[in-house]
């Protein structure tokens, strides 16, 4: 390779490297802000601010869903299966994928009792797909709670 071409290649490598480092620094600085939501640990730990609109996520705890006797009101517990969980209160239509054990994102604010008053509920899907027959088998086989890192928010 002649000198001019090598110099151009070196210049490109430097520009690309510089851009990559800049992007890495910016993204690291923004770190927490790029996360779309607060995990249960940080809601319980008090890092999530009360009284302002935030997003939080977790898995719907088994047996925690309580529908109001009348109306669309519902309350449920979001958990990370590792000891952190908080109560969510929502009035509205739940997404089709909402069910116990499902990853859920809620938008809203924490009130004074640190109950999450949600204005929007989104379902988070994991990367696993299977036919209904197989899902039945998988459910029967596994009695352990799902791995909170596999597809959990």
């Amino acid at each position: 390779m002649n000198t001019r071409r090598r110099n151009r290649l070196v210049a490109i490598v430097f520009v690309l490297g510089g851009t990559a480092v800049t992007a890495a620094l910016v993204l690291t600085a923004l770190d927490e802000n790029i996360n779309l939501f607060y995990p249960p640990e940080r809601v319980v730990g008090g890092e999530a601010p009360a009284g302002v609109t935030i997003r939080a996520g977790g898995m719907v705890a088994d047996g925690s869903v309580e529908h109001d006797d009348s109306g669309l009101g519902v309350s449920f517990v979001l958990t990370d299966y590792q000891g952190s969980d908080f109560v969510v209160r929502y009035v509205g239509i739940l997404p089709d994928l909402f069910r116990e054990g499902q990853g859920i994102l809620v938008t809203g604010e924490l009130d004074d009792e640190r109950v999450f008053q949600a204005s929007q509920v989104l379902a988070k899907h994991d990367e696993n797909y299977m036919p209904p027959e197989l899902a039945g088998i998988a459910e029967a086989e596994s009695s352990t709670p799902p791995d909170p890192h596999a597809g959990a928010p």
Partner: protein
Amino acid sequence: MSRLGAFVHRLGSPRWFFDMTKPWLAGLAIIGIALLIVGTVWGLVFAPEDYQQGNSFRIIYVHVPTAHLAEALYLAMGVAGVVLLVWRMKLADMFIAVTAPVGMAITGVALLTGAIWGKPTWGAWWVWDARTTSVLVLFFLYLGLMVLREAIPGRERAGRAVAVLAIVGTVNVPIIKYSVDWWLTLHQPSSFSLTEQPTMPVEMWLPLLVNVIGFYCSVAAVVLAGLRNEILERESDTVWVRDWLQRAQSGSGS
């Protein structure tokens, strides 16, 4: 000169490339369309439905291939940008010029199918998480490449400026890929990878593989056709193009 060296050297000649790729075009197009028909019918009709999402998961057969391609095409343009800036190969500039609109269209399809899938699955058309936002940035990068080319007078200068943007923009590709691992996002981690255990059973995964290859071949055919067109246009004042045109005209029997 080594054989590879000779090949690269000849690649610098648009005429040689034009003559060489003629038989590839039909082959790529036929294989691509055939695979797309097989994969799409298989995926939409015969693959089992998902245990949670039901039939709406089937949009994966368009969404995943286009999302993959959107990133791959950008990386290819970045490589072409390096080739243009270092070796001043005209063909690399033509490749970037032809690929940018194709890549933007493919990224648009990925965003659109993602939104259509997001509504029933997540409950929202759009969410500003790291994955969706970085793909939107990719869309605007493609758009930027096209706008920049038009904004700068002089083909050579425009080409170099575009190449720089193509190279710098590749930084976004690993951010897209790893966004779902680095940050908390609503978007799930990758479902499709050739190097890792599939996240779905074979009867769902195979049609996806067929469609991924089908999309790659079809888009390669589109880019190649565009590239051959671009060669004719840019070399239109050369003797060989005029000869080719004459032969093409008399060959068509008019």
